[in-house]
């Protein structure tokens, strides 16, 4: 028997409430190292809250969350050295150029100068940003800015990457480009937790799909397993079936999703 590698993410009994609204009500989730897990859920189901807690941005009210074995509440600095986060808000400096933005990250990760330049040049190449390298981020198109955003996340060589709705608002070409980058990332050994509204995105990228509803997981399986279990042709059908349960729960934006 082989030794089980440390999971990328281990969440147990995670709870979070805002005022009298319970967002996470005992969430359990494990992301095995080297895999992609897509976290699905209606608007307001707690996907971003989960990512924020794991990314050390937000304290949980209860339960535990570990990233590569490090507790996010007790060892936030250790966790911060292992993760990369691309949130919903654009996290680039609009006044700096593409190269300057990437070098800012390299400097903050204390990469030696030569190594920082090499990695910056690599990422510019890999993300097809060479023509724009000297342009200020505010002059880039939405798709390119998103690519820069993800490239900045990767400068420090994160082992666990959080992508919170990374392709929202992108055109199909830009989405496919970004998917390729995520696949390359996993091929290099990183683990990914992805939240998304696009179920085809989950189908394309994820080894496992977790559906968040009512503050807990209502399903956690491979995309194929989920479709088979629900006798559904697409993840859309699975999603609609799962999130239609228990309409009194906190995941109340069902109309918007069903639309």
């Amino acid at each position: 028997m082989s030794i089980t590698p440390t999971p990328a993410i281990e969440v147990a009994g995670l709870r979070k409430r805002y005022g009298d609204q319970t967002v996470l009500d005992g969430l359990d989730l494990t992301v095995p190292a080297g895999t992609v897990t897509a976290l699905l859920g209606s608007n307001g189901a707690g996907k971003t809250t989960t990512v924020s807690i794991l990314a050390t941005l937000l304290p949980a009210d209860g339960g535990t969350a570990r990233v590569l074995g490090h507790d996010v509440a007790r060892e936030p600095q250790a966790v911060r050295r292992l993760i990369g986060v691309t949130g919903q808000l654009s996290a680039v400096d609009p006044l700096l150029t593409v190269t300057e933005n990437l070098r800012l990250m390299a400097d903050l990760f204390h990469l030696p100068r030569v190594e920082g330049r090499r990695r910056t040049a690599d990422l510019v190449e890999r993300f097809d940003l060479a023509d724009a390298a000297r342009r200020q981020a505010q002059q880039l198109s939405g798709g390119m800015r998103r690519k820069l955003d993800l490239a900045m996340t990767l400068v420090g060589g994160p082992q666990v990457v959080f992508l919170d709705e990374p392709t929202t608002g992108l055109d199909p070409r830009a989405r496919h480009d970004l998917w390729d980058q995520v696949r390359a990332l996993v091929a290099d050994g990183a683990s990914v937790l992805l939240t998304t509204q696009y179920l085809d995105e989950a189908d394309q990228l994820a080894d496992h799909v977790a559906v968040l509803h009512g503050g807990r997981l209502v399903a956690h399986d491979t995309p194929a397993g989920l479709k088979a279990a629900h006798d559904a042709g697409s993840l859309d059908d699975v999603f609609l079936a799962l999130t239609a349960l228990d309409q009194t729960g906190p995941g109340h934006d069902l109309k918007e999703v069903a639309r």
Partner: protein
Amino acid sequence: MIATAAPTPVRIPAAPSGLARAAGDLATMTRRSLLRMVRNPSMTVLLVSTPVVLLLLFVYVFGGAFGAGLGSGVTPGADGRAAYLDYITPAVLVMTAASIAQSTAIGVAMDMTGGIVTRLRTMPVASVAVLGGHVVGAVVQTLMAAAAVLGVAVLLGFRPGADAFGWLGLAGFFTLFALMLTWLSVAMGAAARSVESASNTPMILLLLPFFGSGFVPVDTMPTPARLFAEHQPFTPVIETVRDLLAGGPVAATTAATAVAWCVALTLLGWLWARAAYRRPRA
């Protein structure tokens, strides 16, 4: 340690320790702040032109009459204008710092509400480096702007009497004062719930010089206003700048009071800014 079946935590990549890391990060964030200033020069021009307009307005519109009220022997008109220019130049320098403080608060609030600071908060970067980058950048901007405004005052006929030692003292004192205003404005920006409120709170820093010895002598004010003016921090600051510029003897008690205010408020601003930065936001 309790033995558990849990897999071992993954080793963290090596990184420089505490102080060296914070200093490096501060340098990096300061570079970013200065680069942003270079990329957006119209902001600096605007920040210098506001106090220059104020200076021209007060000297050429109000100065002829106000100057005559400064003391006996000053006649209205050109004589009054010259006397008033001498009197308000220190206050206009202080206003320059205050107007940059307002723009700093707005810049910090924009940073905090945008994605970049969220990214930095998920990275092993000390809060003091993120905020300190804004502070050092803004202090540099303040000193450059104050020098430019002082240059305009000299063109209008202001003649500082300070010697080399006095200039050194002025530079040191003004840097301390700018540091105080900047930490306060960074805190206001970091604590603001929106960019709009971040632009409103620092208005108090722009108003306080008027309720002090900046534009009129405090002994011309009615008692309640005078008591406030004598005991608020801007008055000893303006008086100290005035003494240092004039090259005359510096009133020791006033200067000590000014330094004490600056140190205390710098500390308050730093603690407030740090707490605001650490406040969790989703």
